[in-house]
């Protein structure tokens, strides 16, 4: 999976591409740790528009990101999940835990 990060004022975006699964663990952590260190970033957006698969390990990573973000006083938004990714998020009822936007 490829990850690129972008900072715009208080908004940070992590754009993911490819398969988000167990193997993405280290890359994803490295990426979000950088975002969490950035003091100005108050909202962390994880963009899924180029992600075509999400497994349960990935859901776990999102929960971890949320926990760390909450502790750092930042909010997390999941954006543009498509197809199977949207389905996995729905089945896990992640809408009750995260703000999900189109």
């Amino acid at each position: 999976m490829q990850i690129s990060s972008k900072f715009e004022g208080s908004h940070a975006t992590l754009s993911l591409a490819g398969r988000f699964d167990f193997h993405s663990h280290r890359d994803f952590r490295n990426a979000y740790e950088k975002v969490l260190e950035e003091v100005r970033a108050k909202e962390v957006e994880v963009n899924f528009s180029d992600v075509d698969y999400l497994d349960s390990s990935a859901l776990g990573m999102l929960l971890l990101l949320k926990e760390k973000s909450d502790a750092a006083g930042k909010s997390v938004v999941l954006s543009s999940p498509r197809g199977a990714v949207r389905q996995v998020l729905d089945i896990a009822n992640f809408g009750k835990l995260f703000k999900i936007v189109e």
Partner: protein
Amino acid sequence: MSAAPEMNLKILIADDSPTNRKQLETVVRHLGHVPILACDGQEAVDKFRDESPDLVFMDVMMPGMDGMTAVKHIRAMQGSKWSPIVFFSALDRMQDMVRGLEEGGDDYVVKPASLQLLRAKINGYARLLSLQKMNYQYTEELENWRDEARTQVRLGAHVMARLTDADGLRDSLVRYFNIPTDAFSGDLLCARRAPDEVLHVMLADAAGHGLSAALAALPITQIFYSMTAKGFPIASIAEELNRRLKAILPADLFVAATLAAVDVRSQTVEVWNGGNPDALFMNTAGEITMRWPSRHPPLGILPEAVFSGLTETIGFHEPGDLVMCSDGLVEAEDPADVWFGLEGVARVFAQTPHTEGQRFVALRTAVLDHMAERPNRDDLSCMMVSLPVERRQAVRFSAKSAAVYQGPVSDWRLELSYGETELRYLDVVPHVLGFISQVQILKAHQGALFLILTELFNNALDHGLLGLDSSIKSSENGFELFLQERAQRLAQLQDGRIELSFLLHQDGNQSLLDLSVTDTGPGFDFQGTLAAELQEDNDHRPYGRGLRLLRNLCAELRYYGMGNKVWARYVLSEACVAADSALPESAPA
């Protein structure tokens, strides 16, 4: 390069010329290494065997065994350790050099060589060897890790197998398969009958797979089995599972789970689904007539305060199967990466006749065929529960254990009283059963007592205090409506109280338990209802079986007051003294 540690090498120098030996020996000592000297090929072979040097300088032309032959012997006895061999010879033709390298040499230096060149060569090999040594250590470490991991996997697989293999899974209504990705599965299947014979099943899928997933799934089996045995409803079990998992798991681990309570007697299926694919009701024609989609996040994520144990219940009027599976089954991929999907499940059901176990076998075969021998990415499991419609519903209880005390008893009395606050959140019947099954003679009867108590208590609460009308249940979606209405009225209940009393006593050679349940509601026309009960064959109605069940189980049943007090007598044992004395005097050991 500088990362490699300094090494003291053992360097074998084989040369018949003392001058040449001396030159190399000096350089070797100067660089801090240890020289080992040999004067001919045979001595070189012997010293190599005895000293196991790290690096070899070999002359080619020597009396007796020459250098080329010596190298052949050395290479033949070398084990996993690689010691570079440098030919050091006055023969300077290209074909000599090529032959030396072909015979097993790693390098070829032509005599005479400058001190600088020899020093540089030795330093180069020292770096190479120290890197090789590090590499060797890593490999060894890795192998140790692998061995240890294998041991742990074996242990994990053993424990998981023991914990997941329960008698309940051999229930005649239950069929299941579990195809793990690793040595053991993070998918967990459980089944057990509650005291009233309602079947509880659970399909749990821990995030990830392998040991970490199995570890996350472990604590939940014990909770599921013990709470089911005590008669707790699945909503309370889900709540407790969530509480425990939340307390012990790190933030990124959780367990998707489907819990279901299958009540063949009252023909209802109740489901709680958090994070699993839809649970399905498939009728005999192979159509999906009900779906229970995931309504909650998986277990172990939400804090207790916001967790919801809300279940969905249906009454079924035709036989069929309850089908539950993990996402591994839905996402099983064929060679073109197409998922099997719930559509795949539906297809198999539509194409296979509803005969004993055939659909189950067909489903398993279809999934394996779909994957075409490719390994599954995720643990893959499925559970099917047969839902028969039985016109005659005899209540059966599991065999009582023989070692239980059978009486006579001395008087034992228990009085309990619950007000509206406790009625709102307590599972009163399991709560009470917890007390009374501590008494030895009552423990053996807990199934029947659970049923009697459930009927008496539910009548007192649903009809006595909440004034609900059971006939709601026979309408379309009746069970949901009834349960919704019940939850609403219970939340608004004011000044309601239910009192339970138990008296265990001996009457002649009978041990008896008298139960009475009193509510503070307005009562009901019990005479009219009882008369109707006795006349009407109401097997086809999804309600009203309760009274007849009570009559079957209890020796006596009486209503008092306005119908808000009910008294029942249950016979625990008869003529136990006579039975004891009837035993042969010398029973076989």
